[in-house]
């Protein structure tokens, strides 16, 4: 392979070269047209802006070659051309400051039940909440990275069990889920009032990664893999 010669600036023109000047002018107009448009621009749309008889193919080729190694590229799509950020920069551009979004009330409720009752199945969550839980709510919680699919309950239907992650502990400033306040503390904080029947109990939660006796491992189903955070996330 031969080393490419240092390229001369595409936009550099000797003042006396009229044809080259026209080409560069057209090149700049094509560049500006692509820049100002969020959709692909086709040759027909460019034509009225360019010099008569402009070779649009040559112009877009020259521009595409010039942009090839830049942070923005010229791509041919849908019969036209458009500027796009270079695909390899996606990671650098993607780590934007995340948008802060408050968790919905339903999601907080489900999260709270998972935290206290883990490992817990969806049916058990619904039993406690008295309402059905939408798939979306669990999906959002999985997206937060605060809950994970733990395994399956050894019971008819083999329902998935949910538990919290170490990211959950970080988020809520807990050292361990066992630090979640119990009944007396909740009462003391005024969150539970006195109308609590005898026999009411709050479980002592555990997010131990080893499965319980009534749990068995998840099969490597594609669904589970996309939803659950990598297992390594939970080792803390």
């Amino acid at each position, binding site marked *: 392979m031969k080393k490419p010669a240092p390229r001369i600036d595409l936009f550099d023109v000797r003042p006396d070269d009229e044809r080259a000047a026209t080409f560069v002018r057209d090149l700049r107009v094509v560049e500006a047209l692509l820049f100002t448009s969020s959709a692909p621009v086709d040759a027909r749309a460019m034509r009225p802006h360019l010099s008569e008889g402009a070779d649009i193919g040559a112009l877009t080729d020259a521009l595409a070659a010039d942009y090839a190694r830049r942070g923005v590229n010229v791509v041919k799509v849908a019969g036209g051309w458009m500027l796009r950020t270079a695909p390899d920069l996606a990671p650098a551009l993607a*780590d934007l400051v995340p948008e802060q979004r408050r968790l919905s009330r339903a999601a907080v*409720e489900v*999260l709270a039940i998972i935290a206290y009752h883990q490992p817990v199945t969806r049916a058990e969550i619904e039993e406690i909440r008295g309402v059905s839980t939408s798939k979306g709510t669990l999906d959002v919680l999985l*997206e937060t990275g605060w809950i994970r699919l733990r395994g399956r309950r050894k019971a008819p239907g083999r329902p998935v069990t949910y538990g919290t992650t170490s990211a959950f502990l970080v988020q809520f400033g807990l050292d361990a889920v066992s630090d979640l306040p119990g009944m007396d503390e909740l009462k003391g904080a005024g969150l539970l009032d006195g109308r*609590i*029947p005898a026999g009411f109990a709050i479980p002592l939660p555990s997010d131990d990664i080893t499965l319980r006796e009534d749990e068995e491992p998840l099969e490597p189903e594609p669904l589970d893999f996309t939803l659950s955070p990598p297992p390594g996330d939970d080792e803390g």
Partner: protein
Amino acid sequence: MAGGDFPELGDERPESGEEAFVVDLDGFEGPLDLLLALARTQKVDLTRISILALANQYLTFIEEARRGRLELAADYLVMAAWLAYLKSRLLLPAPPQEEGPSAEELAEAFARRLRHLERIRKAAEQLMARPQMEREVFARARPDPASLPQRPVAYTATLYDLLSAYARQRQTQALSTVTLKMRAVWSLAEARERLERLLGRDLLTDWMRLDQFLVEYLTRPDQRATALASSFSATLEMVREGLVDIRQEAPFAPLWLRARARGAGENT
């Protein structure tokens, strides 16, 4: 510079190379604007302008305008009054012990005010001559959000949110368990107990509709199914034990219930 360079009224005598003024105050942005236009006819730098000559020009102009039309905005008249005052101060010898600024200082301050407006106007011109966004220069079109890398979402919730949500739910559930569930479901034993009470009071010596006996409960939607089902099961149990007879005319027809004759029961 003499005051003879007045703008002409009407357009009968436009001199070559001279700007001819048409009396049309609508075209002016107030008295200072008019004064600047008049000053331009002095053809000198604003810093060397004769305020006295300018005052004369202005006063003459206003005089002519008033002759031509009746209405003049108050701004123009106030300025005319002030310039007439300034003119008299400039022409008369200064009194020996003058309080406040001298006539020359007033004139200088006035000239400075005119220069200021002139500068601001030039600056405004320069400003407007700059390439303006979406007029001469164009920004990137607001990109299609789908084409951009997705902005990640960071969900937030506080420990308080979490604990209060948990306590709220458990509390509601605990209370509902105590009050509702007990009534909502009739156990077989409860249903039987009720039926036996009925039997004991000899109310079932003749055929009686089961739903009539249960009418108090069947009107409550939350209890209808459980009351009916448990009671029916209880009657079947009692039939097996020879305590009652039941019959039904047709599918879905009312169930009839009657205590079995004692002797017959004993015989079985």
